[in-house]
């Protein structure tokens, strides 16, 4: 049994995920964490006598070895580490929704303080790819930015959605670190500097990422899933009803391989083997875990695993010694093994008994009503499933439809569908009332996104009066573009927007692709190239045309730029295309984007004007206050009253101004996100190198504020004509 080597109880709350350990003076590891009231506290148990004596840092009134740092804004991310290798000690990085502060705790000075328009939702510190100096990389609204120790912006790129988690990991094993980005659109993207080398789609928002070792990394989702990836393949994952607050890799059983340590929202901490996900150690806190970090907190040369709870309880664990043989839990391994084996034996015996009883029942009388009650069904009962597109009716919107029916008079009592990402929870249940049960059920399915989904079906089959049902388990795949119905072409409604590209594939292969990715009626017969197919979206009725010429030139007409991107990415992976240059035009979308860009400029200027106003007002306040106090000293109560009244009005104005600023800022953020997304979308229309070229060219165009070039890049893929 592994016991904590130290336990501390700090009287400060800790905001989840905002915990870091750093040697801010070069020798003593100190714990920094964000706490209530927009403050960061630094716990320094080593040097009790000396305190940071400066204006920014104040001594905590509650605890002698805790100092408080005022941030005055909600802290959104925090980390510590070596930012300037010449300095020889760690810097503390604190991100908020508008700024990033790199702070030198020892000297009580700012290394830099940068305004970041896209906010900082996550921060990671380290070296990225070939960039020599360590970078503080922050992830905000669709944007990633990396700063060196002087605050120079050395790295900038965009990603698909708001960033929630970041990690540095040697993903491809080349000895250099790649950046892993988990974002709100459920994707984990891997950036080799600013090139995307891999994209993995998960089932929920990725809340945490952590490098394990080699090219393995751990991840946590907002629905309570944690797991480990080995490169692009998911190694294992588990799901809990609680939420993983923090994950960390640490070798707790001294076997040379780090385990995935997870801190949960119910106060549990567990260590899981990186290979199997098996729990090798667990402990419980009385409140939710805020962060899991590691450091030599006792300064005895041994690194401890340090877990912090939101209530300020901190426990440190030393890795298990060799004598424990990795056995960190209370129970003995043998006992557990015996229990497990006996359980298996019992299960097998039960199954055997099931078969025995079954043969007994078979030899008896033919099927009767009473049998139905006991859940006896004909042995040749089969389940048919069919996926199709339903165009809907007046009462029901169009949807994809899954029809399940039995092959005889048995009824389907209920259907459970377990699938990820297309229902509100992880499952969908269809349970008709007892009057409506029959031997077939049609289930409408409306996936919100165009992703291929595995539907795991559990169908309860029996008779009307049964109290026991047979469970038929089967898996069907819902194709990626199941929400598009094949319709007859109508040239009048053909969308103006299009993408155009050439692939070196036979038309038959394209037909196969169509069959795999769309729900085509069974009798669909597609003749040889050239041909065209037309689909209607069941979500918004938008049209989609796919035309193929004998030369292999494909034109996709749709007004939905995301859909065009999805089709190109799907084709690219199906035909294993590495690089694909695409010509695209989305007049309506581009027009919208143009407006957004103009708005961004407007909001920027309003922002500056408001800042200037505020500065003016603060000067005015100062003078009014002085004059009011003067009047008081002169015992001129009337003037004093007037001055304070003015001050009051001014204060009101300031408050209003602040509200305007806030609104302005959120609008600005929204628009910036739209711009970042536009770049990302333009990238998704291409594959491989052209994709990266588009993204970097677009970025340059935005920097130089050259809107026309931006649109040209989006259209043809390059800046040069």
């Amino acid at each position, binding site marked *: 049994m592994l016991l904590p080597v130290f336990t501390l109880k700090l009287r*400060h709350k800790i905001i989840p995920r905002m915990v870091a350990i750093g040697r801010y003076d070069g020798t003593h590891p100190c714990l920094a964490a964000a*706490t*209530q009231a927009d403050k960061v506290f630094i716990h320094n148990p080593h040097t009790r006598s000396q305190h940071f004596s400066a204006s920014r840092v104040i001594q*905590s*009134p509650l605890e002698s070895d805790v100092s*408080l740092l005022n941030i005055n804004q909600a802290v959104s991310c925090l980390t510590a580490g070596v930012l300037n290798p010449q300095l020889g000690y760690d810097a503390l990085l604190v991100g908020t929704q508008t700024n990033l502060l790199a702070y030198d705790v020892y000297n009580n000075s700012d290394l830099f303080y940068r305004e970041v328009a896209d906010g900082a939702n996550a921060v990671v510190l380290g070296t990225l790819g070939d960039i020599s100096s360590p970078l503080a990389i922050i992830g905000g609204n669709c944007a990633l930015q990396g700063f060196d120790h002087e605050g120079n912006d050395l790295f900038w790129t965009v990603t698909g959605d708001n960033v929630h988690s970041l990690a540095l990991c040697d993903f491809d094993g080349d000895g250099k670190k790649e950046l892993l980005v988990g974002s709100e659109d459920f994707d984990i993207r891997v950036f080799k500097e600013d090139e995307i080398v891999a994209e993995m789609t998960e089932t929920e928002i990725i809340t945490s990422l952590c490098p394990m070792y080699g090219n393995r990394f751990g991840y946590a989702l907002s629905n309570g899933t944690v797991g480990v990836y080995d490169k692009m393949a998911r190694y294992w994952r588990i*799901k*809990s*009803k609680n939420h993983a607050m923090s994950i960390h890799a640490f070798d707790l059983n001294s076997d040379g391989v780090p385990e995935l340590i997870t801190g949960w929202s*119910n106060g549990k901490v567990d260590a899981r083997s990186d290979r199997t996900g098996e729990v090798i150690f667990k402990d419980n806190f009385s409140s939710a875990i805020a962060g899991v970090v590691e450091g030599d907190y006792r300064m005895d040369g041994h690194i401890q695993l340090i877990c912090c709870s939101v209530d300020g309880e901190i426990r440190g664990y030393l890795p298990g010694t060799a004598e424990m043989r990795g056995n960190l839990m209370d*129970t*003995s391994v043998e*006992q557990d093994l*015996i229990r497990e084996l*006996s*359980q*298996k*034996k*019992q*299960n*097998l*015996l*039960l*199954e*055997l*008994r*099931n*078969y025995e009883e079954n043969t007994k029942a*078979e030899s008896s009388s*033919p*099927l009767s009503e009473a*049998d139905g009650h*006991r*859940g*006896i069904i*004909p*042995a*040749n*009962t089969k389940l048919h499933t069919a996926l199709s597109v339903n165009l809907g009716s007046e009462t029901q919107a169009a949807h994809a439809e899954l029809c399940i029916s039995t092959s005889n008079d048995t009824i389907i*009592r*209920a259907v*459970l569908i377990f699938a990820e990402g297309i*229902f*509100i*929870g*992880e*499952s*969908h*249940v269809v*349970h008709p*009332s007892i009057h*409506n049960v029959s031997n077939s059920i049609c289930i409408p399915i409306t996936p919100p996104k165009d992703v291929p989904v595995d539907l795991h079906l*559990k169908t*309860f089959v029996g008779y009307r009066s*049964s109290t026991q*049902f*047979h*469970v*038929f*388990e089967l898996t069907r795949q819902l194709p990626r573009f199941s929400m598009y119905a094949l319709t007859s072409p109508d040239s009048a409604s053909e969308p103006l927007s299009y993408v155009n590209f050439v692939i070196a594939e036979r038309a038959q292969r394209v037909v196969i692709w169509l069959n795999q990715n769309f729900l085509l009626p069974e009798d669909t017969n597609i003749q040889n190239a050239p041909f065209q197919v037309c689909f209607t979206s069941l979500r918004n009725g938008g049209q989609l045309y796919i035309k193929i010429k004998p030369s292999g030139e494909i034109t996709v007409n749709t007004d939905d730029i995301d859909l065009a991107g999805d089709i190109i990415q799907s084709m690219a992976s199906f035909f294993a295309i590495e690089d694909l240059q695409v010509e695209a035009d989305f007049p309506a979308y581009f027009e919208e984007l143009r407006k957004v860009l103009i708005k961004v400029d407007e909001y920027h200027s309003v922002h500056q004007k408001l800042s200037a106003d505020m500065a003016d007002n603060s000067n005015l306040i100062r003078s009014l206050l002085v004059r009011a106090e003067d009047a008081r000293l002169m015992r001129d109560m009337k003037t004093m009253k007037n001055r304070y009244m003015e001050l009051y009005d001014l204060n009101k104005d300031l408050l209003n101004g602040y509200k305007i600023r806030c609104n302005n800022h959120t609008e600005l953020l929204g628009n910036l996100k739209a711009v970042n997304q536009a770049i990302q979308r333009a990238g998704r229309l291409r594959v491989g190198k052209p994709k990266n070229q588009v993204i970097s060219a677009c970025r340059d165009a935005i920097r130089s504020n050259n809107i026309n070039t931006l649109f040209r890049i989006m259209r043809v893929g390059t800046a040069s004509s």
Partner: protein
Amino acid sequence: MDLNLNRADYLQVGVTAQKTMKLLPASRPRATQKVVIGDQDGVVMCFGVKKGEAVTVFKTLPGQKIARLELGGVLNTPQEKIFIAAGSEIRGFTKRGKQFLSFETNLTESIKAMHISGSDLFLSASYIYNHYCDCKDQHYYLSGDKINDIICLPVERVSRITPVLACQDRVLRVLQGSDLMYEVEVPGPPTVLALHNGNGGDSGEDLLFGTSDGKLGLIQITTSSPIQKWEIRNEKKRGGILCVDSFDIVSDGVKDLLVGRDDGMVEVYSFDNTNEPVLRFDQALSESVTSIQGGCIGTDGYDEIVVSTYSGWVTGLTTEPVHKESGPGEELKINQEMQNKISSLRSELEHLQYKVLQEREKYQQSSQSSKAKSAVPSFSVNDKFILNKDDASYSLILEVQTAIDNVLIQSDVPIDLLDVDKNSAVVSFSSCDSESNDNFLLATYRCQANTTRLELKIRSIEGQYGTLQAYVTPRIQPKTCQVCQYQIKPLSLHQRTHFIDHGRPMNTLTLTGQFSFAEVHSWVVFCLPEVPEKPPAEECVTFYFQNTFLDTQLESTYRKGEGVFKSDNISTISILKDVLSKEATKRKINLNIAYEINEVSVKHTLKLIHPKLEYQLLLAKKVQLIDALKELQVHEGNTNFLIPEYRCILEEADHLQEEYKKQPAHLERLYGMITDLFIDKFKFKGTNVKTKVPLLLEILDSYDQNALIAFFDAA
């Protein structure tokens, strides 16, 4: 002194019922004892333990489910004859496994509980109690509600035969011959009875009881009246009690109390100088503990607690240390034993797996033929659906002998599913189209590996009634699922009680018409929980109920052709009126419903709600302040500048937050009930006041008792 017990699993038999495992008396003090256990396959097994391995002494052939297993013998000699109750039959075995008795009792129902004392045999089926002496019928009693357990005070000490029945309606019925001597009300439905110290304590009259809501108590059953000694409330919200035993595991010369609960908790209570029980040890097993006994079975000289669990595990919690300090060689030997055990299990498994594969193939092949049937025997689901008095919510507990894969919960009434900490399954709520398919709740619980027990919490609304269904699918091939149904009754939050306050202002609902006693009884069963399904033998019965949420009461008295319901809560009467008239119309019975409304009762109910509401409002307000105050504390460093009230909140912060978390949506429920009260009050007057409800909610938002009463009067 700390009690340190180590777990050792001995073997697994079939599913076991309550009180079906016993230890045979030892031949000499502290020597190893043999274990006898009976399971639901009907097998009685007796085994000893040698070097950690179970060695079978005898094993009978399968038969009917074994409901109870007791030891007996001539009084004042070692009690080593084994008696089992299976179906309506009692069988006796010697300790060598030779059957010496087979007694068909001719009871129409199967036996539920049994007690043996010398040549006296006490049996009970669901409602019937029978006393036999030398297998001859002696006495008979018909109980008003289900009998859960039966015991007789030690004849050799009190020199009279005093059987005690533990009945579902929260009473212990003390009998004399065929007659009821008196009833003792206990705080919950009693599930188990045992003699204190194994012999009835100093007086021989001390009786321990455990209830299905987890309470324990000691009562002295004297000839005239009961004397309550002590009671342990279930503060930690643990499971119901299934078995108790007295054994000196702490070895301090005083017998300790061993308790097994249906959530897998094993507890040891010691007695202090004032003879009050103190919790000394607890350990959680993963499934219901069906029997418990102290003794010595593993190793000579080491006492242990032997328990059997629902799925048939016999497990010891032994005082023997795991790692002996006698040198490195010894440990190696223990490991060797373990390894042997594991390898033998492994080979057994391999063999089984091969057999199962063959059978599986056969099963698959049978699906080709058109005549074959697929019949999978039902697995047993151990379920419990009970009302918790503390937070007026229902607990649904499902236990299966193998791991559960998933559970689908479906309800045709609006209910809320609450989160339970113990439950680790991943819940997912599904959208439901209520109109066409009668679904108000569809949720799946996907269980983690090795979950055999699932606990859910459900909050119902009075007046909304229907059925809750649970489809349980265990992780076993061929996959099947079983449906368990539970009624959500119209007055779901009411609980049986035996005494009510007659001084309260009451509203009365009177039913008259051409209906039989059985019919009116079935209506009461339909409306209210905890009423026995079987109509009582009397001509006229009275049941008392208490609303667990508001503490209002209901008195129901009915006979053939007449039913009278009295309650101080007008909403209760209103619900009864609606449900009864609906039921009667359904059965085409002409029913005259008369009601008498007492205006004062509304004020009285509001006054009853007042302290609860005020407390909740204050609590909510305080909890809201905690974070802000804590921030101030961090900012200023001390709290001296705060007014005492705020300082008090800070000091109690943790406690307040815990209290607040314990009762989610309590305030909303209170508001809902006040609104119902308001609507119902005027419904009886024939006015519809639904339009005034927003106004009422406004008044509740800025709550003041007098304003509320005034509003009720004025509207």
